[in-house]
């Protein structure tokens, strides 16, 4: 078996281009999502409409100006608010009530054309305006964003990206590996030998497990040091659950590989079966709670959903393994099922 693993390693190492892709893509995706595809909002253009410019209003404006999230664009008359928002002079307008000092009442007008920015701006403004003002404190609801007080989107994306990258790399790479031997005819020779299917499958999984483990390390290092993702639940736990997920993804790839007849089909199936559900059903982009119930059942089966949930809990909320028992349990069960299916589906003959 060791010679089989060595042979697979050689295949991977000699295919420099694929190797490069596998090691560079996670790096790129994490950086891209971490920095560019960010729902964090900085320098929100804010204008203020205050018929009665009291001390409390001045204080509120000062707090906004001091924050790097806002860019104070000056005062605006009530009649020009609409125009300012339309022309893009302001993305948000705060209208202070006449009796703001006493009642703490204010109104937020936001440019809803960009929903994400509007929503984030709203949250920021509310938090800035609620601090310091006694009246607001007494009347308003106190909101605290636990675990991610700055609402950093990288906290949300990093677990999601991990769920996607590992599935893509592990499942796609392994899905090709057995089909490739079928296509080139080497499977014919391999079958006429004492090698057992389980050995073929396991030997093909191990090198990819090592490779994706390198990816895991790269991602965690980037997430922790560059994107400031806390890994609050302990690196050990994160790695442990991730390795389980890697094995699951590898088994899925093996399963695909055993069923299809060509490398192209393997790639297509991996892409259709893996990328689409990951995007729609895993909670990577959209919360799974909003999915219609019929489709939500699909999301219960999609492995990345459980992995991403577990990662969010482990990395951001900082729970320990006990807190993700359900997720780990589901992943473990799915791994066993896929592994068994992969071995059972392995075709011992050519037909």
């Amino acid at each position, binding site marked *: 078996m060791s010679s089989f693993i060595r042979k697979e390693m*050689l295949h991977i190492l000699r295919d420099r281009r694929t190797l490069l892709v596998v090691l560079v893509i996670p790096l790129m995706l994490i950086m891209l999502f971490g920095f560019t595809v960010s729902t964090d909002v900085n320098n929100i253009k804010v204008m203020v409409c205050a018929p009665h410019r009291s001390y409390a209003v001045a204080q509120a404006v000062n707090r906004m100006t001091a924050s790097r999230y806002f860019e104070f664009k000056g005062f605006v008359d009530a009649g020009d608010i609409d125009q300012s928002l339309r022309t893009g002079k302001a993305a948000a307008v705060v209208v202070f009530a006449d009796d703001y000092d006493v009642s703490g009442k204010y109104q937020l007008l936001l440019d809803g054309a960009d929903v994400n920015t509007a929503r984030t701006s709203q949250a920021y403004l509310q938090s800035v305006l609620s601090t310091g003002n006694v009246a607001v404190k007494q009347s308003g609801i106190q909101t605290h964003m636990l675990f991610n007080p700055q609402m950093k989107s990288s906290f949300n994306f990093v677990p999601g990206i991990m769920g996607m990258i590992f599935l893509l790399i592990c499942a796609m790479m392994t899905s090709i590996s057995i089909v490739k031997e079928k296509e080139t005819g080497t499977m*014919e020779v391999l*079958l006429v030998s004492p090698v057992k299917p389980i050995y073929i499958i396991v030997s093909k999984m191990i090198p990819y497990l090592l490779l994706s483990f390198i990816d895991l390390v790269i991602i965690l290092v980037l997430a922790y040091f560059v994107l400031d993702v806390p890994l609050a639940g302990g690196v050990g736990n994160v790695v442990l659950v991730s390795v389980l997920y890697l094995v699951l993804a590898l088994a899925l790839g093996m399963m695909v590989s055993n069923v299809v007849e060509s490398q192209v089909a393997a790639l297509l199936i991996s892409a259709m079966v893996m990328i689409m559900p990951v995007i729609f059903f895993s909670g990577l982009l959209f919360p799974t709670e909003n999915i219609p119930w019929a489709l939500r059942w699909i999301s219960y089966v999609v492995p990345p959903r459980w992995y991403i949930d577990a990662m969010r809990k482990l990395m951001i909320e900082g729970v320990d393994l006990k807190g993700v028992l359900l997720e780990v349990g589901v992943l473990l069960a799915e791994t066993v099922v896929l592994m068994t299916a992969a071995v059972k589906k392995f075709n011992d003959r050519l037909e």
Partner: protein
Amino acid sequence: MADAITVNHISKRYGTVEALCDVSFNVQKGEIFGLIGPDGAGKTTLFRILTTLLLPDNGSASVDSLDVVGDYRLLRTRIGYMPGRFSLYPDLSVEENINFFANIFGVTLEQNFDLVAPIYRQIEPFRKRRAGALSGGMKQKLALCCALIHKPHVLFLDEPTTGVDVVSRAELWEMLADLKEQEISILASTAYMDEGLRCNRVALMSEGRVLEVCPPPDKLEEYFIEKLGNG
């Protein structure tokens, strides 16, 4: 003494195409047996059934006294198979290919070196070269070397000389003659009539049927064409 290969009324069809129809013959121990016939005669299908890769629809066959269906696991350790298409790893070197196939059969190159030595010496100068970069003749010699590495009792060679130059072809057949001395039974197929003459016996195949089994007559080609005409 039991035969090396026994084929009893084997039939195999793919959909509506009848690949093999009631094929029967036997190969004696230590014999070089040739399957001669044009492309599409069913030679490769027969090889795949005898090497346990395909299941026959009807009939039975045994190799080295083991049933090709029931005892396929054990049988796979005792046969050597060289498919018609080059089926080694092109991205591995000559040496790595040989070592890999030796290892999966649980042997080493040194253990059976006597057997493969005449072939190995010819490819040894290229042992660091990737298998994909070898010439046609060298590829076949390497494939033969890999198929022999575990000292099989029966050797299956599906068109071993297709795409190989005249000199290498002659060399390959001389190697097979040497193997015969080591009491390895050989079943080889070919589309070249002159190669039939190097076999002890040949089976003439056409459209999934065995027309005749006989020692190769001197004028094999003419004999075969005449047979085809009658059939």
